[in-house]
């Protein structure tokens, strides 16, 4: 089978990977690199559990062939706590019981990070809109909204 080699920056590290042509970013992360925080919730772009940042933009990694991000910068949940400590979003999700089964959590945190990166003090309505593409079946969302508000406060301190 044909393979194609793709070079990109992954959580700050230059990474080169040979994959089959249409291998998605999500599959490459999970199966080639064994970075399994990024989840396969639907493979249809409908649940948000595969959300990562590509050049800072929230992106559904299940729909994006890796070959298309040549030279771009990818951030996954694993890239948030690389310096040892937790990111304020992670702390807030932990402290406020914003994760139950935990399966939506990586995508949810990445979608929230994309929001806070461009809007440090979002309103609750803005948080709801930013997370509308990320489904959660356990929490009823309210603890997640509180956690993002809490993280915004922590980041501003």
């Amino acid at each position: 089978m044909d393979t194609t080699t793709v070079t990109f920056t992954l959580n700050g590290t230059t990474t080169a990977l040979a994959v089959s042509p249409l291998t998605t970013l999500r599959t490459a992360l999970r199966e080639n690199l064994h970075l399994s925080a990024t989840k396969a919730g639907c493979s249809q772009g409908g649940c948000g559990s595969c959300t990562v940042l590509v050049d800072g933009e929230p992106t559904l990694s299940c729909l994006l062939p890796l070959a298309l991000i040549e030279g771009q910068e990818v951030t996954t949940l694993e890239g948030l706590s690389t310096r040892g400590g937790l990111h304020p979003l992670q702390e807030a999700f932990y402290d406020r019981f914003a994760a139950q089964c935990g399966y939506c959590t990586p995508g949810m945190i990445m979608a929230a990070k994309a929001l806070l990166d461009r809007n440090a003090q979002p309103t609750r309505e803005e948080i709801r809109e930013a997370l509308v593409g990320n489904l959660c079946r356990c929490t009823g969302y309210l603890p997640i909204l509180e956690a993002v508000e809490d993280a915004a406060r922590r980041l501003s301190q």
Partner: protein
Amino acid sequence: MKQLGIVGQSVKRRDGLGHVTGQTQYVDDVFYPGMLWLRMVRSPVARGAIRRIDTARAEALPGVVAIVSAGDVPNNWYTILGLIGVGPPDEPVLAHEEVMYQGEPICAVVAETEDIANEATSLVKLDIEELEPVLDVEYALNAEAPVIKKWGSNTFIYDGMNHRRLRFGDVDAALKQADFVVDGTYRLSPIEHVPLETHCCVVKPEPDGRLTVHTNTQALYFSMDNTAIILQCPSNQLRFLGGTVGGGFGGKVDVITEPVTCIAALKTRRPVKWRWTRREEFQNSSTRAGVKMEYRDGVMRDGRIIARKVRSLQDAGAYHRHSPYGAQKHMANVGGPYSIPNVWADVYCVYTNRQPSSAMRGFGVMEASFAIEVQMEKIARTIGMDSWELRMINAYRNGQMRPVRKVVEDAALVETLQAAAELAGHELPAHLRAMHSNDTGEQTGNHAYGGGGSRL
């Protein structure tokens, strides 16, 4: 209530740090070198007779390693509650003679990659003679409907009867005495559990012949024992690993991935992963049952509910799964949290040609609660009584007898009504605020609380 130490404290989740860092390992996060992928070929029709399954083109596709068909299944019966005597067995692991619902598993393709497995399933040619499906529960009970179950009925048979029944007091006499009779028909369409993690199983054959089975089942031993029965092997040949699940809600109590994945691993002698697609979750995994419930309540002018008569049809879909139990649980709960002296129910577990229903968060009870509580509102509106008061005077008290002949204990329904009213800013009158769940009427002189079955 005695104050305790750590019990009662909102300590953080043990798995919380794993969740927020993405390090919690779910089944789909298990990878083995050389792992194969499994995909399922499913019935395109709701009911039909299988004439021929042609897998030649699929097998010829480069990267396809094996096909698993009914002939590969040592004991091709999948009846999960068979462990506790529910039967007769009615569901094949892989269909070979007939299909009973659209999406029923027929054969599995095992391939080097998920993409290849996907494509191979599209190359399996099925020749199925389509038969008239039964889709509606009322029609299924109709004498003209095709009989779709081998035992000659479209219902589960409970102790020789085609329904579960509840008989408490004399309902027909009480309905005659009632000042008002309130009827309601309630329906519920099948609902999917929608855990964010789809069904997933990874099986690795070990050098000693055992199988290591990673699964997101809600019940490890239950799944292991069922799998052993299907594999016809002692369960000590299996090691089930799990315990961390990305949402279940009752949807992961069916033993729906492990047996076939095990057979595929045994056949190929390689690790195999079967991860369901979201489409399969919606269209093939079991649902909450569709239900039709007919309620008739007899009520006195003062608000006492003196009789309830229920006919309920639970749509099990094509096979048992957990539905015979769900229907029974429904029967046991038609009285709700109220003291009703005369209750009569016939609950049917009905088979249709749709994806099986099974357990889901509160099944049997949730549906009854829906019907009961809308009935309560209808009753309140019919007799012109405040709906808080109606519930509080009928709420069962500790020491009273429920229709299943179990005495109420440790109950505090009245107190939840009082607390909910306060929370929602609804002021209850003093006589309702004074009620409590240990008051069976003698102290307050309230007439509503006789013993079960003895009021008339």
